[in-house]
């Protein structure tokens, strides 16, 4: 399989997953804002921080408010992390792998992009925002399901799975970081709202129900964080995604370096003692995990995607 094709499938999966996660995040954040008393030290700025678009946003928008945040994360074509940009990139990647990816996948992404463009173009969105974002989530899930249900489970599909899982791990750690920001805040009010905040974190990852079923305890910061990091069964828990990536890597050729990178990330997460880390070192710890995830991406990139610079020796 061509390196370029592998790379494009990997990114297709990442972009679709990212679009879904961003829509989910916007929805969950909006609900949280409705629940929190006014004046609590949580703002839309934090949402922009999670998305990693802080500088980009500051350069182009005057004030941080709900409208601008939503515009930036949903419809801003100049923001590479916006839902519309993600879908656009996924579409372009699928267009160029038409000979490998199932043809319906291109059509579905194309339709979804058209749908989002139409709705964003239409002026009135305010009230229907929740329903609109939920539709994006559902349609992204449908595309993920389509790939799972129609692609032969060969190397091509392994790259799709790796992309999806790495993106999930990335989003989970970003959302956990919001929690860390509030943990070290001195805001007494916020401390009192810990339960509500961490319930929201779980909701943003569609993890609340699963948490209730498997943990059966009141939501508290260390327990919820532990669940989202250590659970081996929940699809968006970091350790689970790493296990998935490991399984995929095992089916690919020349997998030594990427496997070792995954191993390092797994050890870092598994061997962490959250009671020791909480609350002061939690932010740094999350940073460490993100670096480890970045290393996995680098290892994959270098092993399979990067143009081979050296010329092969004569035979």
């Amino acid at each position, binding site marked *: *399989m061509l*390196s*370029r094709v592998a790379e494009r499938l990997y990114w297709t999966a990442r972009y679709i997953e990212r679009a879904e996660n961003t829509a989910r995040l916007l929805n969950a954040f909006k609900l949280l804002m409705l629940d929190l008393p006014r004046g609590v030290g949580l703002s839309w700025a934090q949402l922009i921080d999670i998305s990693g678009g802080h500088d980009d946003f500051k350069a182009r928008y005057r004030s941080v408010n709900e409208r601008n945040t939503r515009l930036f994360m949903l419809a801003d074509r100049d923001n590479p992390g916006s839902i519309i940009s993600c879908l656009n990139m996924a579409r372009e990647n699928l267009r160029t792998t038409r*000979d490998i990816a199932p043809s319906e996948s291109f059509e579905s992404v194309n339709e979804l992009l058209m749908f989002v463009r139409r709705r964003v173009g239409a002026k009135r969105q305010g009230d229907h925002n929740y329903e609109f974002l939920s539709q994006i989530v559902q349609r992204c899930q449908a595309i993920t399901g389509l790939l799972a249900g129609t692609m032969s489970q060969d190397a091509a599909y392994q790259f799709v799975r790796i992309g999806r899982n790495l993106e999930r791990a990335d989003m989970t750690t970003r959302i956990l970081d919001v929690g860390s920001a509030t943990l070290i805040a001195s805001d007494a009010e916020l401390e009192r709202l810990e339960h509500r905040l961490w319930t929201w974190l779980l909701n943003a990852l569609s993890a609340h129900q699963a948490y209730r079923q498997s943990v059966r305890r009141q939501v508290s910061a260390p327990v919820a964080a532990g669940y989202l990091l250590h659970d081996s069964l929940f699809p968006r828990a970091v350790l689970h995604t790493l296990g998935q990536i490991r399984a995929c890597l095992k089916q690919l*050729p*020349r997998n030594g370096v990427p496997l070792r990178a995954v191993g390092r990330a797994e050890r870092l997460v598994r061997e962490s003692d959250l009671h020791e880390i909480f609350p002061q070192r939690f932010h740094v710890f999350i940073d460490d995990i993100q670096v480890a995830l970045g290393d996995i991406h680098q290892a994959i990139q270098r092993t399979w995607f990067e143009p*081979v610079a050296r010329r*092969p020796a*004569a*035979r």
Partner: protein
Amino acid sequence: MRIDWSQYDPGGFYDELISSPGQPRAAARVLANYLKSLSDQKLARRQRAAELAIEEMGVTFTVYSEGENIDRAWPFDIIPRVIALREWRQIEAGLQQRITALNLFIDDVYNKQRIVRDKVFPQALISSSKDYLPQCAGFSPRFGVWAHICGSDLVRDGDGTVYVLEDNLRVPSGVSYMIQNRSVAKRVFPELFRRQSILPVDDYPAALFDMLASLSPRPLDYPEIVVLTPGIYNSAYFEHAYLAQQMGAELVEGSDLVVGSDDCVYMRTIDGLQRVDVIYRRVNDDFLDPEAFREDSLLGCPGLLRAWRAGKVALANAPGCGVADDKVVYTYVPDMIRYYLDEDPILANVPSYRCEDAKQREYVLANLKDLVVKPANESGGYGMLVGPQSTAKEREKIAALVQRRPRNYIAQPALALSTAPTVVGRHLEPRHLDLRPFILSGKSTYVTAGGLTRVALRKGSLVVNSSQGGGSKDTWVLDSGGRA
């Protein structure tokens, strides 16, 4: 209301299906009678069903507009064009004869130039050709074949004569649409395929694979064949992807390939570098190899020409074969056939005037109103003057161009292109068309059964290009039994 063939009037043009009002041609009789049995609604419904099928199958061509690429559904007319097998065999033999002579010519041009020495073909035409590549001189590819894939445009004039309008030897496209048209037609008129013996066309990808495999420099059971595409922004990207998929070949872009210090070509795969034996390239000569041709090209791969000349990889078509795809060179093809094969041409060239010749130029300039003037090196109808439809200003402009660069122009009488019934709304009306068969040359020669029929969907228009309001039809070579 049903179709009444006596009301169908091609208006003096040769019609492919109807010989005179109410009278279908022999090969089209079953089709014409069948169509007569359909109500207007049924006909319109089938046309809609065909369009839906095309959308579902994702048959598109790309149009670049307003900074965005738009995939348009391939325009298709359900009424097929029918050719009797007996006539087709003649055309097929003519095409084979032509491509054989053309390949001998190209091989000669890059080597001994016997045809020049024997004064059949002027040296000046070679040295002034922008498609002659000095980098290819002194080399001869396997079997002496340069133009492995050729798409020739055929037209029929008012008296029924079939002419070759041009031979596309660079990177001809359209064959995937020919195959898709057939699969749509089978869905639309299954009864007619059951009732008649229509030659299949879907063996083309297999024939293409076999031809390409025969060029492999390594005698392997499974040579590594790739299709080299310029990428999604190319209007024929759909076709590149389709052919790669059908042949089970990799669809590669220039950046996927690398030429090693051993002069072999490799592709970058997740298993590491993998040797490539045959490249079906859909990238133009200019862009093929920045080391040999345009330095700024990002579409090709540095060193390809070197690898090709070292015999480590086959390129189809071979670089430099465009030297024979020049409208002035075209006027010499009948001479080439006589010179190389010692045969008379089976298919006629459109009578052409070479503007370089003073006498012929004088005639052309005096009769611009009745002629079609064509630049030697353009394709897709660019820079052309269609005399009967031109303004005085356009004629002045082209006259000046012809006088400044006579070698760059030829002129031909305006042909009365044949027509075929085409669905317009709920009725059938005559529309002009042409035919592009595809010819494969490797160890042996293969011609598609029929080809891609392109039809000008606008009334009276002669422009069949899909980017300019053209559509297409399925082409039936009909075996009605008896001796072909």
